[in-house]
C-alpha cells in the first residue's frame, strides 16, 4: 500500500482482490488491484491456479501420445495447439506433409480461429453487458463443433492432426457441411456488427480503453490482434508461412488506435478473412490423396496395409509400443493461433520420449501487458482489458 496525492490531500491506497473465482476473468485468474478510489494504481496478476504440469507430463509420454495433451493448453482452439506441436515434431524429423493434409489443416485451423473468436466475442460482450451476443455467438460455434465432430470424432479435444498428417480420412460429404457453414456465417457476422459496432454503450466502454503504444507492445513481446491493433501487421501466416499458407489470398487487418474497440474490429475482420481462406481451401483440397506422409517407423501405416503386409504390421507394432526416436536436436515453430504467436519448442535426446516440450503461449505473454494497459483506468476497464487481450487460463498456466 502506498500513499497517493488526491484532490483533498494524501490518501492511502486500497488493495482489492479480483478472482480467482470471478465471472469476468475468463478462468481462474487472480489480480491484485491497488486502488486509489476507483482508479487503478497498480495491477498485479497472480497466476498458476490452472497449472497442471502439461510440459512435465509431455516428457513422460511418447511424441505421439503428447498430442492429446496439447489440446488442453488453449482449450478454445485445440486444433491450433495440435498444429503447432505437430509442425515442431515434423521439423525435428524433417518430414514433409502431403499437400492434401496441409490444405485440410489450414481449413480446420481457420475454423478453429472462427470458433475461438466467437467465444471471445460472446464472453467479452457479455462482460460488458451485451448479453444477447453471447447466445448468438455460441449458436454459430455449435455449427463449427458439429463439423469437428464429423471430421475428428470429437467436438473440442480433437487431437486430429498427427505427426506426418491427419489422424483419419475425413468422411465423404464433409465439405458440404463446411459449405453450408461458410454460406451462413457472413450474415451472422453482420448481425454481431449490427448489435455492437455502432452501439453507443459499446463504443463508450471500449474506445480509448486499454491503450498500449507500439513500442511498449513489442518490448513486452505482445503478439496477435493486440499487436496488430497497435499498428504492426505482424502475422505468422504472412511473415513466416507454414502449412502452405503462402498459397492463400487473405489480408491481415491492422489498426492504429490500440484500444479495445480496435481489437474488436480486428477480430471481426479476422473472422471474415478466415471465411475467405476456408472457401479457398475447399476449392484446393484434392478429392483423393494421402492424408499422411510415408515414413516407415515414424508414421503408422494405413489399416489395410497393416492387416495385409508383414512389414507394415511390424512397423505398426513398434510405433505403438516403443515409439520412434528422432535424432537429438531442437526445433521451434511459431504459428498464428487466434490469440497470437503460439510457439512450440521440442528438444529431443534420441529417446522415444521428448527431452523437453515448451509452449510459448500467447495468453501468458500478452497478459504481461495487462498492468500497463490498466494502470490509470477504472475497475470496470479492467474487465474490458482482460476481455480484449483474449486470454485462456489453460494457456497461461499450462
Amino acid at each position, binding site marked *: 500500500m502506498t500513499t497517493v496525492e488526491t484532490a483533498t490531500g494524501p490518501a492511502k491506497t486500497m488493495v482489492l482482490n479480483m478472482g480467482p473465482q470471478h465471472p469476468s476473468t475468463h478462468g481462474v485468474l487472480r489480480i491484485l488491484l491497488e486502488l486509489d478510489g476507483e482508479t487503478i494504481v497498480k495491477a498485479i496478476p497472480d497466476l*498458476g491456479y490452472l497449472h497442471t504440469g502439461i510440459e512435465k507430463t509431455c516428457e513422460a509420454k511418447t511424441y505421439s501420445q503428447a498430442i492429446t495433451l496439447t489440446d488442453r493448453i488453449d482449450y478454445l482452439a485445440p486444433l491450433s495447439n495440435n498444429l503447432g506441436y505437430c509442425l515442431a515434431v515434423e521439423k525435428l524429423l524433417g518430414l514433409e506433409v502431403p499437400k492434401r493434409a496441409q490444405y485440410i489443416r489450414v481449413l480446420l485451423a481457420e475454423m478453429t480461429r472462427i470458433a475461438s473468436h466467437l467465444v471471445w466475442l460472446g464472453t467479452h460482450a457479455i462482460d460488458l453487458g451485451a448479453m444477447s451476443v453471447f447466445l448468438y455467438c455460441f449458436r454459430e460455434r455449435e455449427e463449427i463443433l458439429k463439423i469437428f465432430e464429423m471430421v475428428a470424432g470429437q467436438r473440442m479435444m480433437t487431437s486430429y492432426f498427427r505427426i506426418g498428417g491427419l489422424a483419419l480420412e475425413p468422411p465423404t460429404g464433409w465439405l458440404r457441411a463446411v459449405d453450408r457453414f461458410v454460406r451462413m456465417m457472413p450474415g451472422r457476422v453482420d448481425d454481431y456488427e449490427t448489435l455492437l459496432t455502432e452501439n453507443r454503450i459499446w463504443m463508450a466502454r471500449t474506445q480509448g480503453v486499454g491503450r498500449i503504444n507500439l513500442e511498449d507492445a513489442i518490448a513486452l513481446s505482445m503478439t496477435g490482434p493486440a499487436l496488430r491493433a497497435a499498428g504492426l501487421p505482424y502475422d505468422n501466416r504472412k511473415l513466416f508461412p507454414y502449412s502452405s499458407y503462402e498459397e492463400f489470398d487473405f489480408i491481415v487487418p491492422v489498426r492504429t488506435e490500440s484500444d479495445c474497440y480496435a481489437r474488436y474490429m480486428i477480430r471481426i475482420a479476422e473472422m471474415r478473412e478466415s471465411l475467405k481462406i476456408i472457401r479457398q481451401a475447399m476449392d484446393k483440397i484434392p478429392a483423393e490423396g494421402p492424408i499422411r506422409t510415408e515414413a516407415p517407423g515414424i508414421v503408422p501405416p494405413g489399416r489395410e496395409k497393416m492387416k495385409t503386409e508383414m512389414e507394415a504390421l511390424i512397423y505398426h507394432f513398434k510405433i505403438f509400443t516403443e515409439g520412434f526416436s528422432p535424432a537429438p536436436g*531442437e526445433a*521451434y515453430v*511459431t504459428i498464428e493461433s487466434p490469440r497470437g504467436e503460439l510457439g512450440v519448442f521440442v528438444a529431443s535426446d534420441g529417446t522415444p520420449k521428448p527431452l523437453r516440450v515448451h509452449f*510459448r503461449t500467447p495468453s501468458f505473454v500478452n497478459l504481461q501487458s495487462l498492468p500497463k494497459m490498466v494502470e490509470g483506468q477504472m475497475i470496470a476497464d479492467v474487465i474490458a482489458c482482460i476481455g480484449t487481450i483474449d486470454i485462456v487460463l489453460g494457456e497461461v498456466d499450462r
Partner: protein
Amino acid sequence: MADNIQQSTSLVAEHLRSWNPKAVESVIEFHGEITLVVPRELLRATAEHLRDDSNLLFNLLSDMTCVDRFPAEPRFELNYHLTSISRRDKVRLRSSVPGDNPVADSVTSVWPGAGWMEREVFDLFGVRFTGHADLRRILLPDDWEGHPLRRDFPVEGQR
C-alpha cells in the same frame, strides 16, 4: 547433438563475431534453424547488440525457456528465441549455466517481455537471474519446495 559448424553461413553469427569474436562460442544449424551458443558472461551484452545493431535488429523476444541436460554439465541450457520483425529473420540464442551455480544475467533490460518468462524458468528450474526486478515464483504457490521441471524431480509421487 546436431553438427557444430564453426564456419557457418549465418550472417548473424558473422556480424556478432566481427563485433566481439568471443561472443559466439559455436553455431549450430539444424533444419534451417540457427542456434548461436554464447558464453554466460557475454549474454546480456550480446543480447543488447542483437537488438540494437542495425544489421541485426532482433527486437522481438518470441520465447525464453530452459532445458535441463542433467546429468550432463553445464546443466541448464537457456534458449532465447528472437525475431527481427523488420528483417523477417529468426535466431536462437543459447547460453548454459552449471547446476551448482545456476545464475545468469536477466535480459529484462533488453526485452522487458522476458520478465515473466524468466520468472517461469526460476519457478520450474531454479535458475536465478541477476538484475530481474521481481524474481519470484509465478505458476506454483509461493511456499512450494523444489523445481518440478528438473529432470531429477519425479513426474508423479507423494510428498
